[in-house]
């Protein structure tokens, strides 16, 4: 088993399931760690690696769905639910809250592996996004207050003269701020800037049409 670039957690109160699922994941060359209860999992130290949790709904200490809800408030890894009986309301609720999949025992190798891989991919992407976002935030922090005023207007698609009028400054001054913003945000184009602003949840406050009025 190669040094792991990922980790799969298994939370199930049945040792046979923990054992079998671990074995199956290992046979697929995956690294798995199993816990017998939600509490054990929550308390455990987790390596900073792309992760997926295979979570049994019927846990002795806490319902898997409730655990999902708790974790959603933090940075939760993707969850693949496994359950003894697949009742529709539970599965709907689980999927609504972002579960990767909802598998009824006994589940097939393919279903489980597909779900786990999906989960890992999601998490890998989420982690990348989180890293990216952290970089963007750092860059955003370097903007001056006036540059932070300019950014929403630019990503809203206003023409320079419109934005300048909005802020009550000259078009030339606006152009200087805009260039600085592009540089500081490492935006290759306006479109790139727009995307980055979106990631930072900077609202496009003005519509171009409204500004033309």
């Amino acid at each position, binding site marked *: 088993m190669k040094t792991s670039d990922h980790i799969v957690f298994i939370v199930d109160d*049945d040792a*046979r*399931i923990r*054992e*079998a*699922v671990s*074995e*199956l994941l*290992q*046979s*697929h060359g995956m690294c798995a760690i199993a816990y017998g209860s939600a509490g054990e999992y929550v308390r455990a130290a987790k390596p900073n690696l792309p992760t997926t949790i295979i979570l049994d709904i*019927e846990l002795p200490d806490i319902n898997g769905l409730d655990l999902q809800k708790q974790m959603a408030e933090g940075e939760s890894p993707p969850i693949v639910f*496994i359950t*003894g*009986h697949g*009742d529709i*309301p539970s599965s709907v609720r689980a999927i609504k809250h972002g579960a990767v999949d909802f598998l009824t*025992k*006994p*589940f*097939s*190798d393919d279903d*489980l592996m597909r779900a786990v891989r999906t989960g890992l991919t999601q998490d890998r992407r989420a982690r990348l996004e989180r890293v990216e976002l952290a970089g963007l935030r750092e860059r955003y922090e370097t903007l001056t207050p006036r540059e932070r005023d300019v950014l929403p207007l630019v990503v809203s698609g206003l023409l320079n003269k419109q934005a300048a009028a909005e802020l009550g400054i000259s078009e030339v001054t606006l152009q200087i701020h805009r260039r600085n913003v592009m540089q500081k945000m490492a935006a290759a184009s306006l479109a790139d800037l727009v995307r980055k602003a979106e990631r930072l949840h900077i609202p496009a406050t003005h519509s171009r049409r409204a500004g033309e009025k």
Partner: protein
Amino acid sequence: MTIVSKSVSEADASLTRALKIFENMPGFAWSADPVGKFTYISPNALAYLGTVQQDLDPLADEDEFGWRRVVHPDDYDRIAARWRHCLQTGDRYDTEHRLRRADGVYRWFRNSGQPARDAEGRIVEWYGTTIDIEEQKRAEATLRDRERELSQLVDMVPSHLWRLTPDGQPTFFNRRMTDFLGLDVANMDRPGISRLEAMIEAVHPDDALEFRHALNHCLATGKSFALRYRLRRADGVYRWMSSRAEPMRDHHGRIAQWYGLCHDIDNHVKAEEALRERERSLWQLVETLPAMIDCATPDGEPIYRSQQLREFLGYNLEDLDEAGKPRLAATLDAGVHPDDLAAVKEKYAHSLATGEPYARKHRLRRFDGEYRWVETRAAAMRNTEGAIVQWNVICLDIDGEVRAQEELRLAQDRLARASQAASLAELSASIAHEVNQPLAAIVANSHACHRWLSAEPPNVERAKITSERIVRDANSAADVISRVRALFRQSLEPRKTTTLQSAIAEARNLMAEEASRRRIRMDVDVESNLPLIAFDRVQLQQVLINLIRNGMDAMDCATRDKIIGMRVRRTGAVVRTEISDRGQGIHLPEKIFEPFFTTKEHGLGMGLAICRSIVESHGGRLWAEKNEPKGAIFIFTLPVEPETAS
């Protein structure tokens, strides 16, 4: 002269002799003149009276004839009148009266006198005798008294006495008989009918023939007559009589009279009849009671068995008798089930020894060889001293009950299992979980195993480990399944073709206790003559009990009017069963049948889903409707068996 003197002396001598006769005859002599004055009274009379002749001279005003003082005052007027008459007419004087003796005692005398007349026919003198008849009078009086007594006896004896001529004609009825018949012998004579026939008319028509035959036979043979018959009283009421008659024969041996005695035994006969009737009805009671009755001596030997018991056993009291073996032991050995015999014998022995009542249930062999459960109870009957005189035994065939109880117990067991099944059904999720866990592990392990074996190079060690786990988990799954199967085994019972009635009754009985605890009334209305239906009893009970219990739960908040209605009707090719409640009703009539839908706090929502699947597996339908005025009504139909549907 000599002749004269001789004749004078001869006359003197004859006078002297006459006087001697007068004075010595056993009676008094007297003579009186034509007016009644005594001219002579014999000395023995004067001696009797204790007086002298002069004292008997008439006294003008006080004493007409001079003998008032010596005659009994009660007789005086009568004989004085007679004497006066005779003196006037010259009729012969003949009276009986009492005369006072010197010591004051009166005695009866007969006084006779007749006149002597002269040539012209004039009365010159009366001559008479007075004879003591006291003894004769007494004898007469005694006889009269005796006769009166006898006739009183005959009349007063509290029986009828009668007399017949040798050819049977009544000649005498005593007064009681006359009073009874309202008919005297004297006025029995009617033209064209004999007295005997007239008497027979009073005999009850049903008894008349026998009476006539019996009497004629006796008259002909001279044998004593004895018969019971009903005789009509004057008021028309017939009363039972017991009659006897004996012939009286004269010294030639010929029958002179028949004397009969007849007494009223009506009360006696009625009492006897009533007693016999009571005995008969008691006997019938014992014989026809729907119980087997048996009586035994103080030491337990059977002496009587009622018809029911004889018929049950198929043999009579004496049939089992063998020399040297007590009847009780023979009966017990022959009848009691071998498994019960020792205990029964012990209990009998105990009761016989102590006098305590006996009660025991055991199996008894019927005439056809079938052992049936009976309950036997025995109690000692004691005399006033408290000693046991008899054992009275009652034996009831309780086979049906015992079997019904057994059935009930089995049904309750089945219910317990059914309700267990119901809760298991609700816990089916958890059962599925139990089975699913090892299955899921097996599947995962199998895939892992496959992966290990498919790897390059194959990881045989890991494959071995996983395959061992597969075996382990598969066994564990099999264990769960066999446990579940054991729980559900009863529902593998074959479907029986029967009517719903018994299943409904069973469900009602099983829920009766819970209903009364929850103050719920169960109204059951099952149409009679329901057609046959094939169903799994346990499963159908599960449906019924689920629906009943749901209805009860729905009425938990209600304070009154808590009624579960169970109504079964045939409609066309189905039998329709309705279980109604007076609860809150249903808001989502279709949703309730979905799995995991529940309105209850502690329900998993499987009950109705399972009920529906059971009903549907029987080819029926289950749905809910609104009950009027409130509550819900669950209705399921089951198809009628094709053979009986037509």
